């Protein structure tokens, strides 16, 4: 997994609530058997019309806005468990997603792929949108070690929460499987002593 430490970038603002994984990557694009290439269809039906032409009014088709940070309305990533949503976001080039609320499964999937989901209060989210809509060059600085996100233009900052284990995974580029595999003997012992043999 890719390591994550610190990032300063402009942002792509998407002030829409309840963005579900069917918007992030519609089901008809889930047919690939590898993890690569999903970025082409990120937000497919918002980005392109039915003939495949870019929709001018969608933010990702507006050259004014670009960057490695996606900022979206609350309850981002609700819906299906498809990890393809996290893959699509990463493949497109986002390293961080900021929202005031994330759906559980999406959040886990993002963390498992080195994409950092940052939950900020509603008011701070508004401040980010205000800064970006006032000046699209506005940058944010995300520091994972310090657990801070800073709006560079105003200096406003927020200290975000992250599970300490997940934080160290991101910083070191480790994944959960490496960790669990180091406990195989304990798993086998658990299987040996647990009384519920009827489950197998």
């Amino acid at each position, binding site marked *: 997994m890719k390591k994550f430490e610190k990032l300063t970038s402009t942002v792509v603002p998407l*002030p*829409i*609530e*309840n963005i*579900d994984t*069917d*918007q992030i990557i*519609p*089901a*008809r694009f*889930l*047919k*690939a*058997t*590898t*993890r690569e290439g999903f970025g082409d269809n990120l937000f497919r*039906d918002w980005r392109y019309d*039915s003939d495949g032409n870019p929709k001018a009014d969608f933010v990702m088709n507006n050259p004014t806005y670009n960057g490695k940070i996606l900022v979206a*309305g*609350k*309850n981002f990533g*609700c*819906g*299906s*468990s*498809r*990890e*393809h949503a*996290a893959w699509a976001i990463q493949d497109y080039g986002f390293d961080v997603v900021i929202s005031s*609320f994330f*759906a*559980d*499964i999406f959040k*886990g*999937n993002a963390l*498992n*792929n080195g994409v950092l989901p940052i939950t900020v209060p509603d008011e701070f989210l*508004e401040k980010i949108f205000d800064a970006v809509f006032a000046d699209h060059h506005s940058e944010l600085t995300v520091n994972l070690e310090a657990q801070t996100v800073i709006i560079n233009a105003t200096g406003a900052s927020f200290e975000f929460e992250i*599970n*300490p*284990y997940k934080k160290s995974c991101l910083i070191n580029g480790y*994944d*959960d*499987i490496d*960790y*669990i*595999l180091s*406990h*195989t003997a*304990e*798993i086998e012992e*658990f*299987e040996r002593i*647990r*009384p*519920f*043999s*009827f*489950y*197998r």
Partner: protein
Amino acid sequence: MGKTLVEKIWDAHVVKRQEGFPDILYIDTHLIHEVTSPQAFDGLRKRGIPVFRPSQTVATADHNVPTLNQHLPIQEELSRYQVDMLTKNCKEFGVELYGLGHPYQGIVHVIGPELGITQPGKTMVCGDSHTSTHGAFGAIAFGIGTSQVEQVFATQCLLQQKPKTMKIEVNGELAKGVGAKDIVLYIISKTTAAGGTGYFVEFAGSAIRSLSMEGRMTVCNMSIEMGARGGLIAPDQTTFDYVHGREFAPKGEDWDKALSYWQTLYSDEDAPFDVVLEFDAADIQPMITYGTNPGMGIGISDAIPATTDQPESERPSYKKALDYMGFRDNETLLGHPVDYVFIGSCTNSRIEDLRAVASFVQGKKKADHVEVWIVPGSKQVEAQAKEEGIDKIFEEAGFVLREPGCSACLGMNEDKIPAGKYCVSTSNRNFEGRQGPNARTMLASPLTAAATAVSGKIVDIRELI
């Protein structure tokens, strides 16, 4: 201090608990399908490791499969490739596959329970958010991403934070024509689509207790639609009677041992929940959704809430949803014409759902302009429907009984609702484009869907039975 049902099952599966780390949680049963598993199998190959406990893994093909002419090769190339890849992977890694053509094939959350694989007290996962369905048996069951599918393949365990717990009680008697789907759509309309995030929800109360196993599965199935990872219901005699005698249920002495354990699976009187919500069953009407998330639901005779009644920050998203659906503030949906009716999905494709639909449509005909697709949840449901003559009732009504799969629930296979068309659907999500690009989905119960198919417009089932 007593323990909640979730805590009892969770604690019985913790392999290792270490300060500062999520729990290593043992997984009894891993269900897989063609869409979220190929990259996980690939991961094993890259690491050069096998599936750790292949006998605790079961596979089926459901998301991508056509629901007509399943005996023929899959037409669409990418779908065929993905389904073939599942077959190849299962063979290589020694995983049991109930693929196309197998008498056990079907939607993963329908076949688990009907084969007796789903049992009280188990931990179960699948790369599919509707894995919460299996919680109806008093199991901890939840959806996972593909990296986690690979984790379970590699170790039969998952790294998981112990979730917070919520109890939702529904007490009282349901009105005629109101069922499990209406209960859960009502609950989500109250909690919103995010209200359960971070929680495992235990559904309780007399109205829940009175539901059949099929009804309980419908309720737990949609707990993810309020954001909850899982939903579950304490097992009782209804549960034990359903499981008993099924193919993979414990037998003989094992059954007795299992039963005496399962009878301990309930939340203790004094068990603390983080949140408790209570609802009165008498307040629940037949429900329908009007927007683009499952929290946007109303009683069938209610008006669509006005945009100005929403918190100011949420108005743009709310208006976007109504515009997409072609609905207006304060509009009532009764009498609104529909183009398609879809009865199926892991929410409502079990034999009881088909029986409810058949009992309503017997002797009636569908409206001329409506296309009706009925998709059984499994080969076994399909066979049972035929044995009971339900297929004939559907045929006479002008409905098409198709073959098992996820079908028009998710716009991935051939079954898609055309752009701009209205579909009353018994599935679980009304997201933009969920049933096909620009399709407009209204979620409802099988009975409401059946009545809509006959009337050709949204109707109140209570006035027809």
